[in-house]
């Protein structure tokens, strides 16, 4: 009989406790916390690998169009190298290996959306991204320079998805 009473008391206590907990939850006010986004490093928002310092190029260097290499392209607001562009980068690396006196300048460009200032930084990141990829393929970093034109020099001046996709590019020019 006593065991039963103790058990009943225990159950009652637990039940009472559970009920009171439930009661607290329903009386609590909902407090709005500000949404603090976690410090995530998405792969496409950071240059992969280590920083590779840029090198001073000769004062009198002149770069010219080569018409040999297609532009590589980027997703909106991103500067990661797309897998589909790795082929172009490989052929750039191979050509530079065969022509080891020549220096490369990578121009980074953006489409017109986005603020002018942010596009200048984004263009530079695109050029640096392509440079890192080439260095990872064995090209001497000292031979590769970067310049950003932001949204200043669109290839296609129109304002549609096609034009924008063309303008989000890295373009290759070579020393004379």
């Amino acid at each position, binding site marked *: 009989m006593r065991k039963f009473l103790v058990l009943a008391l225990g159950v009652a206590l637990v039940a009472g406790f559970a009920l009171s907990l439930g009661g607290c939850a329903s009386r609590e006010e909902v407090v709005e916390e500000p949404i603090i986004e976690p410090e995530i490093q998405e792969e496409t928002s950071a240059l992969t690998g*280590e920083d590779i310092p840029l090198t001073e190029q000769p004062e009198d*260097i002149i770069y010219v169009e080569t018409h040999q290499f297609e532009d590589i392209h980027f997703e909106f607001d991103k500067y990661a190298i797309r897998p589909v562009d790795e082929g172009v980068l490989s052929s750039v690396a191979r050509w530079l290996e065969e022509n080891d006196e020549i220096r490369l300048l990578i121009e980074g460009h953006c489409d017109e959306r986005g603020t002018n200032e942010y596009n*200048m*930084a984004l263009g530079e*990141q695109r050029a*640096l991204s392509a440079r890192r990829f080439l260095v990872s393929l064995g090209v001497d970093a000292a031979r590769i320079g970067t*310049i950003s034109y932001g949204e200043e020099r669109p290839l296609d001046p129109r304002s549609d998805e096609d034009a924008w996709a063309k303008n989000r590019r890295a373009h290759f020019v070579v020393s004379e």
Partner: protein
Amino acid sequence: MGSRNARQYVLPIIAAVLAVVAAERAPAPEVYLSISKGFGEKIIVAVPLFEAEGAGTVGADDVRDVMSFDLGHSGYFSVVENTAFVDENEAADRATGEIDFAEWLALGAEVLVKGTMEAGVSEFSLEAEVYDLAQGQSIFARRYSGEAARWREAAHRLADDIVRRLTGEAGVATTSIAFVSNATGAKEIYVMDYDGENRRRITRDNTIATYPDWFPDGRRIVYTMYRGSRQELHAVNISTGETGVLTEFPGLNAFPAVSPRGNEMLAALSRDGNTEIYRLRADGTDPRRLTYGRSTESSPCWSPDGRRVAFVSDRSGTPQIYVMSAAGGRAERLTYQGGNNTSPDWSPNGDLVAFTSRVDGVYQICTVDVETREVVRLTTGGGSKEDPSWAPDGRHIVYSKRQGGKTDLYMLDILDLQPIRLTDGSGDYTSPSWSGRPEGA
């Protein structure tokens, strides 16, 4: 032209000026307190045409237009709009040689600005007296003179003096805005008066020049330009047009921001292989890296006390505004709403940072409180608005708006949020930078 009336009128003014000059040598209250207003209430001011003499081309209407714009947009005054009644009252006053205060009060005015101007071929002067209509007395009188070509400056200085005398606040009528225009076919740096007038080209680089920023002495502007295959920071002397190279690091040399004391600058450079914030001497030497990490840092600006820096970083995955010590180190995030917050500019009052935020796909100008992180949106509607720059009064902001294939500069008062277009809609006007106050102002 009633020259006899002019003489009758000018003599009392000269006497008043002499009296005021003498009075100003004795200790006198700077701010006229009898017309004090609650927050947001405007002082109603009547500006009749000044009595004009001289063979030059500047007319009384021109001067009134400048005065009305300056006082009306200062944020403290409301200018009586019915110029027909205003000019009638003025004519009556000139006929009698006396100010009929009751008639002016009947128009709803509280303050009256009367003046004479002499617009010569080579010189310009104006003498003005400002009256408290309820008290029926003069508040102050002053004379401004100079080269004929600088007549606007005389009117702007009078407007700022009226603002200062009646409110204790410093106006912005004598300030300037630097900006980029492609009017010549190449992007060059230009300067204009804050009201959009007196636009003049400063650089002749015939390339792409952009991101102008003023040195605090107002004599030079630093900017980014392209020379051959390089991007460089140059400084240009506004009066002489002389330029000099400040930096020519490989890669990015962008977003120069001169420190409040003028001896240093910030810039975004990519010389170490990533786009980061650097602090340099104002002559471009001694770069010190302030930010690290795999993310992109750009668009730096100084706090007004020169101790902190606000900048853009994508370390969270999207571009946001951060604040750190001007010595570098840990950065605190300021913006949490939206996925694209860029282009910060720190208010001269130190409490707010203006920036561009993409809201529902449209770029708008917002402010964020540095302490509380509270965000206020200043602009609405369509058109891509970017690059806010604060006026030295911490109240007005200039920004660019791109719409329909053209970009224009607009200014707004953060307390009334009515955008005023400053440029003429003929092309692309971008990258505005509001000057400080001219020396002595």
